[in-house]
């Protein structure tokens, strides 16, 4: 988090496959990009939802996994030195008097750019909220979906819910700090790494933490301070006294702040034209799953195409006096020089 706004040509909102490929197309035109993503790594849906699963419809790749595709794209855009800002969500986007755009993230990082490319896919990945009535009242005070500072949990009576690496890792990391720690999971099988599970069971056997089989059904507290959570399990209901809850139910995509930027939407998708993939706001483009136009298909290959055409118009805004001569990477020595292959 820094207080000096970062000034650049283009800010790309989202570092999934289409945001990544946009770097390439812009790079061929000497346009520099910064990318912002709420996840802690590039790849978007590909690495979050299906890193190991095969994709069969990427041109040129009969089969490729989500992670491999992301790795390939990262390699492909390396010559253009993109800068990434992870673990941040773009909250505010507005136009400045000089025609450039001002962005502010939820980490208070500011950017000023001539062109914005919204490659937000299905929306920001947001932690899933457990279906407990009234839980919102405790969020941020006693219910947390991530751990920013471990010391915040010192001395707490902690309840952690989940069976994946997040739940197990935080159980192991916070057990020494907490006053008491209970882990809850709906079944006795875990998705987490076997080693983590074994360490957790060892802590349980030593009496250092509690493990309960079951699901949360209710919570109790006042003024944002949690007091008790009810767990329903195979043996009935239990009320667990706790003052802090960490539910790890995975992530879901939410449109989020994109809805507030004054862009024309069609059923929560950003409307664009099909020549430049520009929104109703000149200088703001949308590529990939987040956009909409007649005939739109939510395919990665569509986003790649959209990025190529977007870059042409972005170039017109950023280098208005430069005449673009269309070139091929196979034969243009100047393009090849930029790619570092000659």
């Amino acid at each position, binding site marked *: 988090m820094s207080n000096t706004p970062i000034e650049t040509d283009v800010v790309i909102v989202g570092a999934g496959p289409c945001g990544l490929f946009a770097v390439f197309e812009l790079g061929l035109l000497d346009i520099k990009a910064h990318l912002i993503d709420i996840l802690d790594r590039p790849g978007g849906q590909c690495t979050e939802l299906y890193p190991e699963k095969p994709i069969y419809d990427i041109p040129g790749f009969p089969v490729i996994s989500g992670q491999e595709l992301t790795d390939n794209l990262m390699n492909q855009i390396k010559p253009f030195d993109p800068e990434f800002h992870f673990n941040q969500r773009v909250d505010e986007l507005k136009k400045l008097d000089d025609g450039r755009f001002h962005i502010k993230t939820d980490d208070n990082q500011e950017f000023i750019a001539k062109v914005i490319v919204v490659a937000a896919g*299905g929306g920001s990945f947001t932690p899933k909220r457990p*279906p407990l009535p009234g839980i919102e009242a405790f969020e941020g005070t006693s219910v947390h979906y991530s751990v920013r500072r471990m010391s915040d949990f010192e001395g707490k009576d902690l309840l952690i819910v989940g069976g994946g690496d997040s739940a197990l890792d935080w159980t192991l990391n916070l057990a020494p700090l907490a006053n008491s720690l209970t882990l809850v999971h709906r079944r006795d099988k875990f998705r987490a790494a076997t080693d983590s599970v074994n360490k957790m069971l060892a802590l349980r056997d030593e009496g250092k933490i509690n493990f309960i089989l079951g699901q949360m059904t209710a919570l109790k507290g006042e003024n944002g301070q949690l007091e008790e959570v009810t767990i329903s399990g195979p043996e009935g209901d239990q009320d667990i006294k706790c003052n802090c809850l960490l539910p790890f139910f*995975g992530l879901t*995509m939410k449109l989020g702040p994109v809805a507030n930027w004054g862009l024309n939407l069609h059923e929560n998708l950003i409307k664009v034209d099909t020549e430049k993939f520009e929104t109703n706001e000149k200088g703001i483009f949308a590529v990939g799953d987040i956009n909409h136009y007649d005939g739109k298909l939510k395919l990665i290959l569509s986003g790649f195409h959209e990025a190529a055409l977007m870059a042409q118009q972005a170039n017109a805004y950023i280098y208005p006096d430069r005449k673009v001569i269309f070139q091929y990477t196979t034969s243009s020595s100047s393009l090849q020089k930029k790619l570092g292959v000659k």
Partner: protein
Amino acid sequence: MPKIIYIEHDGTSHEIEAEAGMTVMEVAKKAEVPGIEAECGGACSCATCHVYIDEAWQTKTGSAEEMEEDMLDFAFEVRPNSRLSCQIKVTDELDGLTLRLPQKQF
């Protein structure tokens, strides 16, 4: 053609003719049954095609395999009869399969 009965949370019932070989999720999406999102398109990656199988059909539909059980951890209000409908293939044996939809998908 086997019929599948989808009962929404508010009680609205949809009786849909299904093609054997399609998944229960695909049948619902094709017939535009509300309440099944299937964000990942059937890749067992999102837990938004979550359904509750009626007791009478539990033996015939079978139980979830490991990958589906892992994903069910992420579904909204999981119950013992929860399944991800993208993992259930329609067969003639499932003619009359009755299932209920959760209050919402995450």
